[in-house]
């Protein structure tokens, strides 16, 4: 394999190839930073330009965009509570809190470090374990996806902290929201009331931006008017984290990266699912789980490493099976096809320099990502000095523009606005909106695969649950954690009363 790696390196080590990777990373980061624009769209925009380039240059540039795109979303997520990409919505939860507490540098740089770490992890996994990981992807059928999604969803019980029922309610609302649109099995429109624009369901982008950004802006507007002007204590602390802080997060980065890589490998799930599930599991096993959501740096490190590791993971089915694991890799597939490269198992045999070139380029992409991200952070921090009213108005305009840009429909702006209002109401009623988002993100995965699993098992739930060791284990975990969450909730309320 070493000689193949060397082949890959010789493919990449041309100055213009490296420049393309660098450009891709920068372009992707910018795209990720802009709400409504994600890695997929950023790639799609470059696609026409790739025709004049050789296949290697085209693909490595797109890899760079992918890596940068999954990172870039965290910058606005932390600074203005607006996720730049869907996966970054998970970063908003703790990242924005940290910023409000003045630990801006910690949040921003940790997100960068974790993203780079995750990217490297995913790339290494891709390089050494592409084939075994592809087997993992194949082992996950409908029953297994259902079990995984259910396990992730059980998190809604603990997200309500001691208000377990409110957490469950929130999750249910989220799942319900995900059922709006075409039924994945029967193709009938559900809850669309004849509105064409709802046929594919609520735009996740619009919903996220509404829930997080718009409702946050509403809240800040209220604070502003109520006289409780939130003042950062002095200047935000923007220093690069000390080595001790970085070291402490190492195991969490690994944790997130493992989840990210494996979930990224599965065609049905991508960076967003990876971010949320890894966040949920980290919170579950952490000793200090109540602090998640109040500004726990782990809550930034885990999802960020997960969503970047997912880029490496998503390339596994693309290269090893010729099947795109996500929208972004679908575009890469398109680019490859245009250059008459057919990914799949034969790719490694016929033209090994291409996949190995891609592996190597991912390494370079993540190295570049560190420097590009570092520069962008320095630039983005200036945003914090913008006055509050201007920020509020600008963010609202930005988010509306982004929502429109994403889908090309005015309807999306309406969706964003509507969910902004819903977010405010939920806050008022103390219903955890993270649980709603979690329900929405995982709802489709859970439901579609439950029903597919039922078709396969011919109507037997037990059949779905025991379809394979994977599904059985995951579901057992799910049941266990629901029970555990209830016990915990009871304990917490007892502690309060005493």
């Amino acid at each position, binding site marked *: 394999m070493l000689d193949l790696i060397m082949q890959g390196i010789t493919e990449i080590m041309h100055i213009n190839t490296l420049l393309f990777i660098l450009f891709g990373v920068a372009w992707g980061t910018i795209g990720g930073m802009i709400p409504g624009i994600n890695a997929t769209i950023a790639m799609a925009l470059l696609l026409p330009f790739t025709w004049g380039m050789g296949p290697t240059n085209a693909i490595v540039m797109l890899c760079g965009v992918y890596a940068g795109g999954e990172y870039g979303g965290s910058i606005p997520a932390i600074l203005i509570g607006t996720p730049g990409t869907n996966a970054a919505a998970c970063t908003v939860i703790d990242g924005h809190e940290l910023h409000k507490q003045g630990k801006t540098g910690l949040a921003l740089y940790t997100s960068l470090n974790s993203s780079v770490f995750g990217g490297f992890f995913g790339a290494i996994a891709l390089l050494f374990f592409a084939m075994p990981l592809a087997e993992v992807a194949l082992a996950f059928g409908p029953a297994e996806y259902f079990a995984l999604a259910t396990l992730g969803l059980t998190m809604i019980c603990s997200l309500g902290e001691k208000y377990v029922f409110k957490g469950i*309610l929130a999750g249910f609302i989220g799942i319900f929201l995900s059922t709006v649109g075409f039924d994945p099995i029967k193709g009938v429109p559900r809850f669309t009331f004849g509105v064409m624009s709802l046929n594919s369901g609520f735009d996740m982008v619009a919903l996220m931006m509404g829930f997080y950004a718009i409702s946050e802006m509403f809240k800040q507007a209220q604070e502003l008017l109520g006289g409780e002007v939130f003042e950062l204590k002095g200047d935000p602390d923007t220093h690069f984290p000390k080595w001790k802080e970085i070291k402490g997060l190492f195991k969490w980065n690994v944790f997130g990266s493992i989840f990210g890589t494996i979930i990224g490998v599965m065609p049905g799930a991508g960076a967003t699912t990876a971010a949320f599930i890894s966040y949920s599991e980290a919170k579950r096993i952490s000793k200090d789980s109540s602090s998640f959501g109040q500004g726990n740096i782990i809550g930034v490190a885990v999802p960020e490493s997960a969503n970047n590791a997912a880029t490496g993971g998503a390339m596994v089915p693309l290269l090893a099976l010729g099947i795109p694991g996500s929208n972004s890799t679908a575009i890469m597939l398109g680019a490859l096809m245009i250059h008459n490269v057919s990914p799949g198992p034969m790719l490694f045999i016929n033209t090994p320099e291409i996949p190995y070139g891609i592996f190597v380029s991912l390494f370079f992409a993540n190295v570049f990502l560190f420097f590009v991200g570092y520069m962008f952070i320095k630039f983005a921090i200036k945003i914090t000095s913008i006055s509050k009213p*201007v920020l509020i108005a600008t963010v609202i305009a930005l988010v509306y523009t982004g929502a429109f840009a994403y889908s090309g429909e005015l309807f999306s702006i309406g969706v964003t*606005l509507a969910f902004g209002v819903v977010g405010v109401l939920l806050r008022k009623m103390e219903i955890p909106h993270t649980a709603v988002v979690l329900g929405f993100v995982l709802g489709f995965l859970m439901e579609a695969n439950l029903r597919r699993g*039922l078709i396969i098992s011919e109507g037997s739930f037990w059949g779905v649950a025991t379809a394979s060791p994977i599904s059985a284990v995951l579901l057992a975990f799910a049941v266990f954690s629901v029970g555990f969450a209830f016990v915990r909730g009871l304990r917490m309320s007892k502690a309060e009363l005493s």
Partner: protein
Amino acid sequence: MFKRYDWSVGLASILLGAFIIYRSSFWANYQSSESAGPGYVPVILAWGMIIIGVIHLVGWWIDYKRGKKTEDKIDYAKEWREFKPLLMIVAVSIIYILALKTVGYLLMTPLLIGSILWIIKERKIKGIIITSISVTIILFLIFFYGLSIKLPLGIMKPFF
């Protein structure tokens, strides 16, 4: 299980649950061949919501009976004052959405930004105008030229 007994939460979730069940009944005929039709999961969710809603209502009732102070008297005037700016922003946003295609991005967005600034009590007219126009221009450059997103031009179309 400690619960904050908001009867409003309880009521709302019961209503939502009932609504879902009602809509799902239209798909009853799709439950033919498989055990899980389009209404399957939504109905389960709905029942869950109703149950939780009932729990909330019951719990609130119990605490109310016990005389426990579940929450302070709701200061309706204060609530209204807090909500008014939000409603105004919502109203402005709706106007924005409706007029965007006809009037165009370049004219509506400064209006949007300006009115939001006004709603949150900014009064420096010059500042408002400068902010509205410059932010719009920056956003326009980024999205229309940088990303080739076709923002609606509306009445400014002839200039392009």
